[in-house]
């Protein structure tokens, strides 16, 4: 029992209150199975499994995800739906354009659902919490351009990179994914002096550089704002990364070979758009004549930069420890990052091992983000039952403002109490908790049958996912999964019983925090 901060031993198996708090802090909340599993782990094992281990879903949930359109690999749909793809080309009139949009919308909707189902049901919660952190760190906006088709593949790419235990792997996985190229417009950025640029100029349609991705890579993904880089550096990086973009099924393989283009999945580096001139980036000369290799070099420089070590450490500590993490913890993480060349496990260990982290698990104080609240509530209420209503989870996440892939700006969702605690947030959480407790919220399964036509056509019709099978939470289980309540909370519950008491417990001040 880590009763005193100094006694925290990350190689001793967790007791129940620590395991429960760990699942809430570095996961999506306790259910009976997760709790049993975490009780057999030490904090170090929990962390290493988060990074290196995959996560499994109940077979029924996995089957549901496998039946969604996103289960088809990208290279199968790209010839039809990629830029200039056959279906896209054929969709010229309004009706077929609309049909194409519906297909794209269906992909994004499926990706959001699949992600929500995973958060709610995965057995390796630390893994999903860490993956969500990186998806948010390298945030994309699903509805933009071709990103509806790419969001799920992007998720898989970041997950694979996470297993490398290296920040640089994640940075590269994000940068070299078409989803990020599309989101921050780099697929359109073209050097005016490049082959494509000169041809465009001759045709009277000049093209040029777009510095959107270059700026956000430095500001958000690596160094952090205020790290001392200049507008000049932004412009130089924008030149370095020209030529990175998307593979189009209309491109002739022979022309690509002749140009020396390099393809990885649907990502394409096209030298015909690249700026081969001399650049000076972060005080270093990038000599003329280099292509894709100078992008590698720039990303490596950014990944091992001390400012990146600090920026990434601070963000991890804010998500997994506190809105205002102690300087000593950030310093220890930053040092570990620098000494290990940006290994995730090395950077996170000083966080987990810190007395501040141990103490914070005894009195969880971080205000849950909407996703933390939705999923932990669902897990507590459905403990032992699969949570199969992905559309309901998605609708709740949208309503509370934190749906996966739907943050429009590249900074990702906030993680602090000030970002989320508001009057509407409280109203929505309380309604959500009450709906679950009352059995009105079909978390387990949505009705497969289409909606019956309403008797009264003017009455608002419920969407199909709003009816189905609810979970049947049991009070003793909910108490165990929520954990101890304060004397004031206990006193306030004096008049309640049954379902009302379950709703109250899920809406309690203690369960709003992790």
């Amino acid at each position, binding site marked *: 029992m880590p009763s005193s901060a100094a006694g925290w031993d990350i190689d001793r198996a967790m007791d129940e209150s620590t395991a429960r708090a760990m699942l809430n802090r570095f996961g999506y909340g306790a259910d009976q199975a997760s709790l049993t599993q975490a009780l057999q782990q030490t904090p170090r094992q929990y962390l290493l499994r988060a990074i290196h281990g995959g996560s499994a879903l109940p077979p029924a949930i996995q089957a549901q995800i496998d039946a969604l359109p996103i289960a088809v690999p990208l290279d199968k749909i790209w010839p039809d739906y990629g830029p200039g793809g056959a279906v896209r080309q054929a969709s010229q009139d309004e009706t077929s354009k609309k049909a194409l949009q519906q297909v794209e919308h269906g992909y994004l909707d499926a990706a959001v659902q699949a992600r929500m189902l995973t958060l709610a049901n995965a057995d390796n919660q630390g893994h999903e919490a860490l993956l969500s952190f990186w998806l948010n760190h390298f945030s994309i906006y699903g509805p933009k351009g071709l990103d509806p088709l790419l969001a799920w593949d992007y998720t898989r790419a970041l997950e694979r990179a996470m297993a490398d235990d290296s920040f640089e792997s994640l940075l590269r996985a994000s940068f070299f994914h078409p989803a990020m190229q599309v989101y921050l417009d780099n697929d359109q*950025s073209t050097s005016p002096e490049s082959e494509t640029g000169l041809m465009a100029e001759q045709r009277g349609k*000049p093209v040029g550089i777009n*510095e*959107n991705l270059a700026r956000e890579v430095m500001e958000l993904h690596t160094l952090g704002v205020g790290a001392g880089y200049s507008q000049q550096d932004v412009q130089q990086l924008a030149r370095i990364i020209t030529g990175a973009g998307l593979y189009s099924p209309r491109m002739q393989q022979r022309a690509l070979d002749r140009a020396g283009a390099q393809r990885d999945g649907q990502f394409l580096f096209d030298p015909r758009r690249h700026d081969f001139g001399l650049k000076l980036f972060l005080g270093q000369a990038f000599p003329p004549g280099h292509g894709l290799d100078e992008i590698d070099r720039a990303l490596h420089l950014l990944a091992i930069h001390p400012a990146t070590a600090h920026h990434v450490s601070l963000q991890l500590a804010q998500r997994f420890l506190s809105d205002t993490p102690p300087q000593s913890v950030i310093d220890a993480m930053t040092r570990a990052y620098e000494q290990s060349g940006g290994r995730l496990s090395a950077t996170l260990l000083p966080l987990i091992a810190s007395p501040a982290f141990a103490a914070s698990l005894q009195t969880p104080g971080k205000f849950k983000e909407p996703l933390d609240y939705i999923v932990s509530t669902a897990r507590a209420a459905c403990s032992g039952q699969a949570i199969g209503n992905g559309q309901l989870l998605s609708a709740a996440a949208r309503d509370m*403002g934190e749906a996966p892939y739907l943050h429009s700006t590249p900074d990702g969702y906030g993680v602090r109490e000030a970002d989320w605690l*508001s009057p*509407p*947030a409280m*109203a929505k959480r309380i309604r959500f908790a009450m709906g679950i407790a009352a059995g009105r919220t079909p978390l387990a399964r949505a009705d497969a049958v289409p909606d019956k036509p309403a008797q009264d056509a003017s009455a608002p019709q419920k969407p199909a996912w709003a009816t189905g099978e609810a979970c049947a939470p049991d009070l003793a289980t909910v108490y165990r999964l929520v954990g101890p309540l304060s004397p004031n909370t206990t006193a306030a519950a004096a008049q*309640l019983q049954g379902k009302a008491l379950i709703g109250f417990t899920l809406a309690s001040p203690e369960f709003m925090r992790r």
Partner: protein
Amino acid sequence: MIDRRAFIKGLAVSAAAFCALPLNRVWAYPLPPGHQRLIVLFLRGGLDGLYAIAPVDDPLLASRRPTLSTTVHDQGIRLAGTGFAAHPSCAGLATLFAAGELSFAPCAGSTDTSRSHFQAQDLFELGTGNIHGPSGFMARAATALGGAGSAISFTQEVPLSFQGLNVPPAVAPLSGSGLKLPQGKLLDAIRQAHAGLTTGEALEQAIATETAIESTVGMDVTAARGAPAVNGFPGLAQHMGRLLVSQPQLGLVFFDLGGFDTHVSQDGILSRSLENFSTGLLALKDALGTEEWRRTRVAVMTEFGRTVRENGTKGTDHGHGGLALLAGGAVRGGRQLGGFNGLDDASLNQNRDLPVEVDWRDLLSSAMRDAYGFDKAALNRIFPGRPGKNWS
């Protein structure tokens, strides 16, 4: 005046008292007679002001912006006596200008030099010239007006500009599922459990706001029957207007719109966003009605302007000085605020974007002084360190 903290704590003592809550009373901060209303409308993403209201008399405009200036050159609506013209998508703004109900500052902005959206937005919302701090300018202005009861934020969450109040302001999202909380024993118990905590303050404000909004939307249901679904700013502006008419004590209002970060193919995207915005502004005027509009000021700002030269993808990148608007029946409109030195290299900031001639804090403090009669000491507390130029 009711001390809301003590009020809420008192309630926690007796759960039974909840049934008889005089909910409307938490709103009872009537503005002193003669006071006016300020609506701060923040356009997030960095609006390209040179696109919306363009210096068409500047001979360099066409070469700086080969594709982005053609429409305004051909079809722009001249703003008399200024050398500027409104893009056709901003016809609503031109109408207000001609009616003497809108002024514009082409080179307005903040002291931001990062050209980062997020840092520049924080700087704007804190209003102190720093990028960190305990409170935003709307929170400090609400305090000067007598507390959170005078203010409302039409956003999903509490924006940074409103952070730092002891009691959160009313937050009324105009989209999404709203506040609807079922009354009863269970809610009473939840309120008691959260009493005295930050979560409790937010919950109490949700209940109070819901009461006020329900009464308004109650009127609305009949009025809007058969009307098209609320969609985009014009629809939201109508709701906002009706709510404000029914709640005259809400003198300080915050609202934000996104979608102005236009790096690529700006023409289509931005003309739609601006059409939405300027039509919405007229819808707001409409919904407020003549009398309310006469005591209304709308300050429209963005975190920064964009590059003077269009980029290689028919868009613009992050810049510095940008467009600010003051609109409303209470403003002295039909004017250009602050200078504009032209688009030649020497007049630009870092040979890239527009300089800032009008500090955002000066613009807002002038509007607040005119609206609320704040004295210099109060304005210094709200906007410390501002240059102090008057833009009334």
